[in-house]
């Protein structure tokens, strides 16, 4: 039994490795704020959404599969939370009441597994009832198949069979075991047997094969003999005890998986409710295959910023087709970093099956998202800083592949403009040739100008807008690079002298 709410055909693996740059992504994109809003203080939820969001999907159908499930959740939040609570309750029951399964003796493993299974069966029946009652409210493939699986696999007949075995395994008529002779003629292959049912008449029985058998008894005071006897018995029931204990584990695993996979959707629902309060819009993005080059959206905002400010923030619109390189220049504090973040956040959220922070959003899937942001807190000497930047870049090059996406934020500026531009040019042109999609925020005028002068079709230039009065709209517009980044403005604003 699988829950299959995150993938159509496999479980979500909480232990899988996250991308090597997970911490960089979290830091550069401000993901913590998003995760906090999703988790609402619940550690488990935080842990799950952290892993799911950072484990990107690369397949359109997989993304759409989750989007459908998420739509159902946003429509039926209370049913989803009830199911989630049953999973939580079951797991707590198990933790509270069943300790002895850690014993190593098959007879006690068997005993406690039987008790545990009785509890699980009750909870599974509860779950099945919810599935029956709410079946019609859900439309996604994921929920529909989970619900019908519960109804089919846990029908009354099966529940009866299970209960019958749980009873039989108490062995009220003794334990029958077969064996063979192994090394040194010691018994091996102890196998638990079910006694043959006697269907012959009494006369047949007397004249059929004369079964010779010998019986002996262990004396009451023979303690070592009794010990040897219970060991023999343990050898016999070893496999059955194992099967039952493993089944209990598996049922436990089912509930764990249910809890884990639903946690992601519960987190998304929390986030949705939070954004609704703020008044920000969301939309389900349209993912395109990785080979495409498209980024088109309207009303794209930095969800992390909005959650922090607890109000609506500036958004951007763009319609870029067949562009590989986005060069972003312009005023300081003109919203370049915010824009870059909103691009990265939308990409990650889209590729985890979530909604995105925009009115409309469509982009191609990327094979790995990387960020190379200037590390402001770095107060090393310039040469050391360039070393550090290049070393991080080298790590990215080790991991990047065709159709990956890299967001650069004022990279390679730790040296003079000519050298920084030259290093950047070499890096950019090599990456473009191997099929990497690049967003490059830069102050390196020599770089942006030389790129602009090439008039390449696959490059688009965006500039932080500056109104004629010197004020910033924090919006980006398509425009050529300008030589100054308006530091003068900033100076004026801060020092307040004109």
């Amino acid at each position, binding site marked *: 039994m*699988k829950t299959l709410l995150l993938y159509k055909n496999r*479980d979500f693996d909480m232990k899988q490795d996250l991308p090597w740059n997970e911490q960089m992504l979290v830091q550069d994109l401000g993901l913590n704020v998003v995760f906090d809003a999703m988790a609402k203080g619940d550690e488990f939820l935080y842990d799950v959404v952290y892993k799911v969001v950072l484990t990107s999907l690369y397949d359109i159908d997989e993304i759409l599969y989750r989007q459908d499930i998420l739509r159902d959740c946003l429509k039926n939040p209370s049913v989803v939370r009830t199911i989630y609570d049953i999973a939580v309750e079951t797991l707590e029951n198990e933790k509270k009441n069943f300790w002895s*399964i850690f014993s*190593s*003796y*098959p007879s006690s493993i068997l005993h406690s597994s039987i008790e545990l299974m009785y509890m699980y069966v009750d909870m599974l029946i509860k779950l099945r009832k919810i599935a029956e009652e709410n079946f019609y409210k859900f439309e996604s493939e994921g929920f529909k198949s989970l619900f019908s699986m519960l109804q089919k*696999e846990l029908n009354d007949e099966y529940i009866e*069979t*299970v209960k019958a*075995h749980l009873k039989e395994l108490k062995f009220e*008529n003794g*334990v*029958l*075991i*077969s*064996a*063979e*002779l192994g*090394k*040194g*003629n*010691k*018994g091996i292959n102890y*196998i*638990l047997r*079910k006694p*043959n049912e006697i269907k012959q008449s009494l006369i047949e029985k007397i004249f059929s094969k004369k*079964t010779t*058998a*010998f019986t*002996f*008894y*262990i*004396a009451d005071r023979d303690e070592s*003999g009794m010990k040897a*006897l219970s060991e*023999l018995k*343990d050898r*016999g029931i*070893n496999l059955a*005890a*194992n*099967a*039952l*204990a*493993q*089944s209990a*584990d*598996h049922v436990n695993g089912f509930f764990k998986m249910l809890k884990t996979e639903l946690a992601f959707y519960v987190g998304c629902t929390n986030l949705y409710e939070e954004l609704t309060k703020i008044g920000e819009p969301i939309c389900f993005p349209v993912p395109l295959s990785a080979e495409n080059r498209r980024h088109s959206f309207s009303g794209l905002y930095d969800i992390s910023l909005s959650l922090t400010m607890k109000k609506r923030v500036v958004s951007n619109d763009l319609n870029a087709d067949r562009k590989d390189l986005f060069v972003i220049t312009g005023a300081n504090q003109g919203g370049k970093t915010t824009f870059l973040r909103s691009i990265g956040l939308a990409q990650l959220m889209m590729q985890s099956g979530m909604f995105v922070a925009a009115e409309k959003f469509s982009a191609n899937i990327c094979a790995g998202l990387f960020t190379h942001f200037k590390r402001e807190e770095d107060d090393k000497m310039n040469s050391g800083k360039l070393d550090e930047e*290049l070393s991080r*870049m*080298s790590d990215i*090059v080790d991991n*990047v592949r065709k159709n990956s996406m890299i967001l650069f934020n004022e990279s390679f500026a730790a040296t003079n403009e000519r050298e920084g531009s030259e*290093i950047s040019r*070499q890096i950019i*042109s*090599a*990456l473009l040739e191997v099929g*990497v999609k690049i967003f490059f925020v830069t102050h390196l005028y020599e770089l942006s100008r030389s790129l602009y002068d090439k008039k390449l079709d696959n490059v688009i230039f965006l500039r932080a807008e500056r109104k004629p009065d010197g004020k910033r709209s924090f919006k980006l517009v398509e425009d050529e690079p300008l030589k100054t980044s308006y530091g003068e403005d900033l100076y004026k604003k801060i020092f307040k002298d004109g």
Partner: protein
Amino acid sequence: MVFQSILFLNADDIANIDLSNEPVFFKDLNIDQIIDAITFGRNEYNLKPFFYKSPNDIETIKYRQEIMRDLENNELFKCIKSFSEKFQHMREDLKQADKLYYKYQKERWFLDAVNLYVDAVACLANDLSQIDLKSKGFIVFKEYIFDYVKSDLFMSLNNATKKLEEDLSSVKYSILIRGNSIKVGKYESEINYSHIVEETFKKFKEGDTKDYRKKFSEYTDMNHVEAKILDLVAQLYKEIFEELDDYCIRNSHFIDDRIGTFEREVQFYMSYLEFISKFKDAGLKFCYPKVDSESKEVFDYGCFDLALANKLISNKSTVVTNDFYLSGKERIFVVSGPNQGGKTTFARTFGQVHYLASIGCPVPGYKAQLFLFDNIFTHFEREENVNELHGKLEDELIRIYDILSKVTSDSIVILNEIFTSTTLKDAVFLSKKIIDRIIDLDLLCVWVTFIDELSTYSEKTVSVVSTVVPDNPSLRTYKLIRKPADGLSYAITIAEKYGLTYEHIKERVKS
């Protein structure tokens, strides 16, 4: 030629082998460490005497080199390996049979031991028939074992063993435990209940889970309940167990002497090849040296100190190899140069490769010609009692006198840092006296010294200088050369350093 021994041509050697002692130069040359490492894990064979005794005979060296070459054929190596594993196993079973208490248990262990023996022998004979053997040693051994497996003695042993094993493994019984009673009967096709339970709960199965099966401690002996059950099983299957009793009495001596001895002696080759394989895996070379009793124009290219390399490889450090050659009248390596530059290592290597060659083993290096010596004499400075400096010089002179009185012109002498406890003037004087004697005797010699004058003392001396590897301090062994090497300098630009130029990136992302 009738098969005698896989190790010796000379019958005297065979008889006295276990009386050999460790040669005195082993410790100075660290050969004792090498032999320890080679024979590690093979204590039951007592192999060290084979390594102590140098046959001092070109024919035997060739006999062994041929056999060793045959064994470098992985196919042959594997089949000998599996043969001796079966023998080891067999010996363990026999020991076990001795230790046990209950009769039917002892008898079954004995039966299993014989079964291992017949399988090992038959399997080896069959394997050898399919392998292309080139060495005289293996060819005559093959004939011997062929005749043996065809003998009536072996055939009837084999048949009786197989029959009994088969009968015993067909025995199947069942026990019903209820309270304190145990009922033992023949098994009557009752169905497997574990399967039914597993089947019923199968649908919950997802991926891997914890294994709850108890691992019962599988002690070899039996408790009295098991023994009682076995007795009852023996009554249920009377004929089989009577036959077993009989068989054990009939076959108490079953191992052929020569095959038994072969199995021990062949470990000499197996242990050596196994030992050197890890060096080969690390890219180091071994070769079969030409061993000559006349020419002293010895050489070995790409050689290294096997004892040191053994340590370095365990630490995953790099092993540096060296070359040496003596041509024309050259006889004496005078080794000088910076400390910790590998001078002692060089001296040891020279001694080691000669010794290993003399017992018929391949030696470190890719091409070598070595001299068949009659004995090796070493004198290595040891940190002895510092308070008795006077005594030390005297001891050294006595020791060297002793060496020079025993050497013949076929001996090798290795001297490491002698006369360090006296004045330079004395040391030069004494050294010159001694080198004169060595030159007169035409000895092969390695002399590690701080006295530069010795290196150009005669046409028989060759100067070798240790050097320090300039840019990799993690290298612990160093090159010794006849000429000093040039240093290296690097100049790399910063982007190149990180592999971030246009060309670099294109190359890196592509692969």
